[in-house]
């Protein structure tokens, strides 16, 4: 099982149902796609993530009806600094897709998915708690793992890992 290089050409990935569906819906919202190690990643424009998820959930062919996970990666000091990562699962098709949104450090905010999947509630609270990403439209965006009065966002790369706080 030797590694094959990642395919990042949007044209050659059009065959994938999720990519095809998203392109048919709104080609400008799809910034980029990547197929690497058997996993599909689609980069979505920041303002369209909620609608993109709604499209993928409602589409009878794709049927990505299950939100597995929401998390974030901090690429400090590069810009755009944050990548919010959504893992979608289709229970009928037994297939996964990963959606990503780039956020810059000036205004790390993105629309909440809680209206699409209530499951996003805790996942997004966790990302807010540990990365400081704001999810607009979240019903209860407060710290979930850290104490309420904690300062800073521990999973950011510029957060100090030693010394007194």
């Amino acid at each position, binding site marked *: 099982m030797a590694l094959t290089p990642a395919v990042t050409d949007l044209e050659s990935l059009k065959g994938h149902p999720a990519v095809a569906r998203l392109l048919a819906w709104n080609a400008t919202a799809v910034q980029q796609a990547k197929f*690497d190690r058997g996993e599909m990643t689609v980069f979505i424009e920041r303002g369209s993530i909620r609608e993109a998820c709604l499209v993928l959930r409602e589409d009878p062919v794709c049927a990505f009806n299950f939100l597995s996970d929401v998390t974030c990666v901090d690429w400090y000091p590069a810009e755009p600094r944050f990548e919010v990562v959504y893992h979608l699962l289709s229970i009928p098709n037994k297939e996964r897709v990963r959606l990503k949104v780039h956020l810059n450090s000036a205004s790390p905010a993105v629309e909440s998915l809680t209206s699409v999947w209530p499951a996003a509630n805790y*996942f997004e609270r966790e990302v807010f708690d540990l990365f400081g990403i704001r999810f607009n439209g979240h019903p209860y965006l407060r710290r979930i793992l850290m104490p309420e009065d904690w300062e800073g966002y*521990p999973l950011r790369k510029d957060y100090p890992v030693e010394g007194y706080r």
Partner: protein
Amino acid sequence: MGHLTPTPVLEPGQDRTMILNMGPQHPSTHGVLRLLLEIDGENVVRIMPDIGFLHTGIEKTCEAKFYQQVVPLTDRIDYLCPMTNNLCYVLAVEKLLGLEIPPKAQWLRVLLNELTRINSHLVWLGTHAMDIGAMTVFLYCFREREEILRMFEMVSGQRMMTSYFRVGGIALEPPLGFFDRVRDFAGYFPEKVDEYENLLTGNPIWGMRTKGVATITAEDAIALGASGPTLRGSGVDFDLRRDMPYSSYEKFQFKVPVAQEGDVFARYMCRVLELRESIAIVRQALDGMPEGPIKANAPKVVLPDREKMKTEMEALIYHFKIITEGFAVPAGEVYQAVESPRGEMGYYVVSDGTAKPYRVHMRAACLANLQALPKMCEGRLLADVVAAIGSIDIVLGEIDR
């Protein structure tokens, strides 16, 4: 002063309701779960779980470790199924590396994973029954669990924090007599499951406490991200072992128990039937165990055998380099999910090409399952909350990480 005001605070909705604090030291919350309950007499109006008491920052710790040093951390996330965590993590890293794992290692991983599932389900069954008031089951379950822990000790040297799997294979050959012991256990375990079922399944008190209690529909369960027996108890036939197989699960024959009712009893039945299926998988793994190496042929990743190190210069050099510098993993990202006893456990590992993971994120099945708890309990009786918590089988170590 923020820490002196408990969070989150529920406002009493009307004059007739009151707020009741449950946990974090309540024995039926299985750890340090705190629930704020708004109750109207004995009826639950609202539930708000408050978590984070066990948060240790494992995801942050992982970023400072070499890839192989993360394995012992994964045991401590879900301490009732250490091998499942080990497996999920090593599968993710192996996928990043593009490693081919020899069949014997894969089958041993399946064998140990199913033993882990039995181990975890036994703890669940014992504590769940004890919460509802059936003390005896707990003692019976822990009797069999003890035998599994002894087998784990035999194979890895540890009872609970096994850390037995390695990136590229498993740590050691199982010792002499291990397979006989497992076969022995697989022989008598089905009778023991009958014993548990005799105590519970037909028991009218058990039925009254569990049937029709804390129901959740399939649509709600999917929307709330529930997985594992919590999802299958509501009639969704989905099991990652069968539907998206990993570690050669596709070579095993097993049924996926599904129940339609979506109540506590349905989830109980799913897990008890899973105990029987797991022991069937264990038996198949014993019968068909392939011969061959237990480590992948990748000298830059896998530690060499002790014997080779004494005779071969190269092996010694590789050993030294792996221990001191780790091994570099090609840049990329993977999401690997396995069916843990509690549901979909996922590891999202991002590599930037160095010897330390750039980011490790664990998708905790319990965290999502816990979100279904308010849906199950609101509008029902206070005493049913205890049954509902037991039925989703939460482990706070995994929720808080």
